[in-house]
Structure formats: structure tokens, C-alpha cells
């Protein structure tokens, strides 16, 4: 079943993420992707994540398709102007890529080409509008296309953003602009996430809770300090700490599996997006412990 039909059928959907490497040696990532085959409903392919230059997202999506995996093309507005974005979207479409996640993208300042010109000719809300118009057979200027696209378009939202209201306003704009599904920034506090979902449920969109695998208490503290919109509660940090160095990753897997169970059993959202960040090989185990496999 395709990612779109899975979500629309009401199945609790699981997506994971692969980051194309820097360089042409793709053995490792192909292996990771292979291990997830038949387990997750779709795989996000990041777009020069953290503004670090890597293999293009579109080309790696195509490889996933050839492997029989369903990709979600992450598309940021950092590196291409409106001509480049639309052209790449048309290109992705003829390669058979169906899902696109529209994002603004980290600033070049975060990456390994700090002197790059940041493009941001358009941004996430406008990119969603563009996808909608390509789906309707027109480019963003209203020019007729010879053959429309057929994308299932999504976006991101940060439920823990402080202050939250401007984020919610933008979320609503993304819905209006045509987003059909959302993958959230990492969440760790399910009660607080429930209150976000209370708001999000007013809109006819599917929400996948973003979950980042915690590998140690140090990692949790680091994210709390440096990653905007991520807030790991102290009790989880203690749980990791108490597990000891050896068992910390195991505790992290437990935490995520527990969260997935709760999100699914209480029907809090429509699925989860697992970000294992370098431990993609653990995704099947997480899913097993969550009772998804």
C-alpha cells in the first residue's frame, strides 16, 4: 500500500529517514535502506541536511524506488530559486516520486559551505502552494503544464516551539496552502503533544509525530541546550542516566517504543516519523518493541 493510501486508510503509519552521504560511496546507506524494506511505510530522504552538501535528495529517492521502497522527497528552499524548485519537482515526478515534504531548510550558516548564498526565493508555505498548482497542471505563474504532477505533499511543524502561537499560525497557513500530512519536530512529552494535537485535529490533515532516538543522557542534554524546539523532560534523561553507559541506547529504544505504543493505542496521531540519527539499523528493533512488527 502506498504511503498516501496507508495514511488515508487510517493505518498507523511509520516513516523513517535516511540521509544521503557526502560522496559517491553509497554502500552503507543502501544497506540501511534495505534493512527497513517492508517495515516502514515510507522513507524520508533529507535534502542537504543541516546545510551540509551531500548527494541530492531526488537522485537518492530514485534509487529507493528502484529498490522497491517508497521515498518522501524532502525539499528545502535554501539552494534553489523558484525556477529550480519547480523544475526539480517536475523531474521528481517523472522519476515516479510521489511524496514531497516542503521545508524552508537550515541556513547555510549551519553547514559546511558557510559562504554560500542563501536562496530562500520562496519558502515552505509558498512551496506548498507551488506543489498544489503543479498538481493542478499549472506552474506558479499560471502557465499551463503539458502534464501535471501528482504529488502527495506534506510539511513540518514544531509542536514544542517557544513561543508556540506564531508556529501554529504558520501551521495553519501550511494547511491552507495544501499540506496533506505533517511530520513534526521531535516530541518527548506526550501530554503536551496531546494538547498540540487537540489544536491540529481541527484541520483535515494527517499528523506523524516526530521521534528522535535518544542514545544517551548527554545527547538529550545537548539537544535541550542546542536544538530549537526540542525539549526532553528530566524524567527521561534520568531514565537514560540510570540505565548506565552500556545500556543507555537500549533505554532510548525502550522510551521510543513506549511512546509509539501510547501514540498508537490512544490514537493520539496518525503515525510516527522515526529519526534514528545514525542508528537506522535499530529501527526494526524499535518497531518490534512497539508491537508494530
Amino acid at each position: 500500500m502506498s504511503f498516501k493510501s496507508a495514511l488515508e486508510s487510517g493505518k498507523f503509519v511509520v516513516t523513517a529517514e535516511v540521509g544521503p552521504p557526502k560522496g559517491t560511496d553509497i554502500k552503507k546507506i543502501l544497506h540501511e535502506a534495505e534493512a527497513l524494506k517492508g517495515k516502514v511505510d515510507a522513507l524520508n530522504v533529507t535534502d542537504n541536511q543541516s546545510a551540509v552538501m551531500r548527494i541530492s535528495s531526488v537522485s537518492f529517492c530514485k534509487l529507493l524506488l528502484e529498490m522497491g521502497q517508497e521515498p518522501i522527497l524532502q525539499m528545502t528552499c535554501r539552494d534553489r530559486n523558484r525556477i529550480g524548485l519547480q523544475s526539480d519537482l517536475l523531474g521528481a515526478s517523472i522519476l515516479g516520486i510521489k511524496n514531497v515534504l516542503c521545508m524552508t531548510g537550515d541556513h547555510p550558516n549551519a553547514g559546511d559551505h558557510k559562504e554560500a548564498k542563501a536562496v530562500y526565493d520562496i519558502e515552505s508555505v509558498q512551496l506548498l502552494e507551488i506543489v498544489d498548482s503543479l498538481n493542478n497542471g499549472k506552474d506558479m505563474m499560471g502557465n499551463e503544464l503539458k502534464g501535471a504532477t501528482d504529488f502527495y505533499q506534506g510539511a513540518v511543524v514544531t509542536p514544542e516551539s517557544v513561543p508556540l502561537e506564531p508556529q501554529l499560525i504558520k501551521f495553519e497557513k501550511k494547511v491552507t496552502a495544501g499540506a496533506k500530512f505533517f511530520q513534526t519536530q521531535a516530541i518527548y512529552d506526550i501530554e503536551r503533544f496531546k494538547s498540540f494535537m487537540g489544536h491540529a485535529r481541527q484541520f483535515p490533515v494527517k499528523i506523524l509525530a516526530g521521534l528522535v532516538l535518544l542514545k544517551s543522557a548527554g545527547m538529550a542534554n545537548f539537544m535541550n541546550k542546542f536544538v530549537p524546539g526540542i525539549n526532553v523532560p528530566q524524567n527521561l534523561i534520568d531514565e537514560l542516566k540510570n540505565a548506565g553507559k552500556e545500556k543507555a541506547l537500549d533505554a532510548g529504544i525502550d522510551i521510543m517504543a513506549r511512546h509509539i505504543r501510547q501514540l498508537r493505542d490512544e490514537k493520539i496521531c496518525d503515525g510516527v516519523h522515526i529519526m534514528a540519527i545514525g542508528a537506522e539499523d535499530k529501527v526494526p528493533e524499535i518497531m518490534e518493541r512497539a508491537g508494530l512488527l
Partner: protein
Amino acid sequence: MIITKKKDFKEFLESIRDYKSFFLIGCSECASLCGTGGEPELAAMKEALEAEGKKVTGTMLPKTGCQTLGTKIELKKDKEACAAAEAIIVMSCGAGTQSAVEIFPDKPVFPSNDTLFLGNMTRFQMFDERCSLCGQCILDKTGGICPVTACPKGLLNGPCGGTNEGKCEVSPDIECAWVRIYNRMKKLNRLDDMKKPLRPKNWAASRKPATLIAREKEEVKK
């Protein structure tokens, strides 16, 4: 005003190494306020050049260096000093420098400053950039705060995921433009405006080089 910064003096000297005598032009407007091209800076430059064995044939502070015709007229009184110089040094912005390029078709002209941005002076010699001259102002829609300039990504529809307790992901020294806009719109009871999507900007409106004839065409013909 136009914000300028002095070039590194060594690098600047390198740029003028082929010449020995100079006429210096400052500007009494922006460059004076920036401390890069007023009376004291002209005097200091003269002294520094002489210390390097260069000759300064004269200095002049035009009223508005980017006003090409006015500056040309003002320079008439310095005709001889200008003629005696091998090259001209302009201590204002890139526009002032190019006034001199037009006024002195036969002489090399060198800038002593780097031109940075259109800025607001917040305190004495403290400047920040609030408008980046996009050619189609949207301040009416963003609570009077310009996201094209104040947000490093120039986002038009709200904060990115990197917004962090009012700070920007790009640097903790930057206030997130969209949190500022949100706070102001909320205070003014205009949050509904923030909910309206803004279309992509028309960058053709700031295509370079721009020209404008602000007066009646008839008048120009005369």
C-alpha cells in the same frame, strides 16, 4: 543612511601603491556619521598617507557625495589641487566613489571604505540594517517590521523551525524577526493580518541596475 566601514589600511595602501599624489574627498552626510569620511577622517587620512611618503594635494568635504552634479560644482574651487593629484581617494560610500569616477574621467579613483548596508543609527556610531531596498515594501503587512531584512532567510509567512525562545537559529545575537512581528501584531490587535499568506516576492522590482526618473517627463526634455 548608507553605512560604511574603513578598509584595512594596509590593504588600502596596496590598492594605491602605483600612485604618489592624491586628492581626498569625504562626505558630510552618512560617511561623517559613520566616522569614515568626515573632517577628522580626512585629516587623519592625509596624515597617514604623508607618513607613508605620499603627497596629499588637497581635501574636500562635499555636502552630499552621491549627489553627482552638486559635488562636481562644489569641486570647482579645488580645480588646481585636483589637477595636481595623480589619483583621487573617496572616503564615502560606493555611490560617492562613483560620483568621483564620473567627475574625473581621466583619473583613477580609489575607495577607502567598504560599503555595507542601508542602516538606521540606533546610538552614536551604532547601526543596524532594517530595510534591504527590495523595491516593493511589505511593511504594511508585517506590522512594520521587515522580515525580508530582519530574518536571515527573508521568510514571509512566519517563523521557521529554528526559532528559539525569541532568538534566531542563525545567531543568538539576532532576535527572531517573526517573533518580533508576532509580538507587535498581537499588541496592535492585528494577528489576523499575520494569518494571511504572503505571495512570493517580485524580485524583478529590485533588479539591478535600477534607475528612476522621479520628475515629470516634460521637464526632463527641456
